[in-house]
């Protein structure tokens, strides 16, 4: 019971601090992975083939969704957040130069345009997840301090920690949306294709045992017209 309470405590603290999109969508995918195939199986009006296909599709889609939301989204947000934050500071520096608030040869401009991505990530994650945070090197600490000094001079620039956390949340949601719209159904289609290939290979040896009896039928114009839907023209009765 104590362990259960600890797990619940961790979950609610995590959801309260940062309710990233992949947590909710992965939880729903897990729910659906169990319950939707049950609902499909309970459909008595569909044919066996329809049910089998829908069942395979439901199961594969939710399985891929669960893995994708946890795996791909995590990889995407871990690798894209820092470069996007760096791009944000770079663009802000260019804007400030255009507004003549910052000199292009100044140290501040160079600091803003050459962000140490690893330092930014460590700085944001340090407070966020203490256990996983790596220790700062001296250079990284100095870089972050310099960055915070510059930001304090201007009102419209986000501080590194907030920027990193906000960007991570949005990237996580965008990644989930792209996965839901295109990647998950696409991967499911590919998996179904592979499954059908495997299935057809399994059924091939049975087919080779049967002898094919091909006999040529005499050509019948009336049958040909019927088959090609030209029978309606009633050519022969004229």
């Amino acid at each position, binding site marked *: 019971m104590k362990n259960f*309470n600890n797990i*619940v*405590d961790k*979950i*609610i*603290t995590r*959801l*309260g*601090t*940062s*309710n990233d*999109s992949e*947590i*909710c*969508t992965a*939880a*729903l995918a897990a*729910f*659906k992975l*169990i*319950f*939707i195939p*049950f*609902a*499909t199986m309970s*459909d008595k009006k*569909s044919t066996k*083939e*329809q049910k089998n*296909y*829908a069942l395979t*599709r439901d199961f594969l889609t939710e399985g891929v969704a669960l893995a994708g939301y946890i795996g791909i989204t995590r990889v995407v947000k871990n690798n894209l957040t820092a470069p*996007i*934050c760096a*791009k*944000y500071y770079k*663009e*802000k520096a260019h*804007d400030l130069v255009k507004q003549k608030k910052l000199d292009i040869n100044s140290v501040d401009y160079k600091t803003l345009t050459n962000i140490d991505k690893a330092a930014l990530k460590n700085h944001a994650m340090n407070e966020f997840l203490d256990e996983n945070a790596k220790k700062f090197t001296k250079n990284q600490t100095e870089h972050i301090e310099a960055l915070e000094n510059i930001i304090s001079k201007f009102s419209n620039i*986000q501080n590194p920690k907030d920027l990193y*956390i*906000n*960007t991570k*949340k*949005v990237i*996580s*949601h*965008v990644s*989930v*949306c792209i996965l*839901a*719209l*295109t990647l*998950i*159904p*696409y991967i*499911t*289609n590919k998996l*179904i*294709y592979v499954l059908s290939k495997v299935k057809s290979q399994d059924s091939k040896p049975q087919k080779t045992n049967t002898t094919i009896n091909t006999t040529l039928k005499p050509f019948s114009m009336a049958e040909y017209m019927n088959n090609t839907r030209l029978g309606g023209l009633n050519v022969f009765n004229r």
Partner: protein
Amino acid sequence: MSLIVNFLTNPQAADFVQNSTCQVLSEGCLKAVGRPTFTLLDKTATKEERKYSATKELLYQSFSMAAFFALIFPIKRNTFKLLKFFPQLKNCDVINAKTAKEYQEKLKQVTDKTMLTKIKGANELMSIIASGIILAVVTPQIVTRLVHPIMNKLSPDETKNKLDKKA
């Protein structure tokens, strides 16, 4: 500043995507477009199989989004009544609230940041569980009963042919 970077780094966008209702609704609407389209594009299955699966998927996604939209807000307004089941919030006065108004007032009085985080997290957890029950347990049962009558209405000729063949 480029539009994409501006959107991705926007603090308001970050606040918006933190809400589990917004997450489920946006993901579900995209799924309602993507999944049936890809099902119809799948050439490994027969036309009948694809049609059944795509109709079921489209119906399920649209119906579940409508049901979710209708049910989640009243549920979310009342999740505070279940906060007393969390032993982590035992010392917090919020769990004694009897009405939504009283809950909001008591929530304003909470000064401990950790406790506020836990209350928010508990609400989100219950919202996720409620979404799971609505989307994965209730809606599929209704959709499996609706899919055939709707398919028959969409293509009455094909079902007639099927019945003729069976006869």
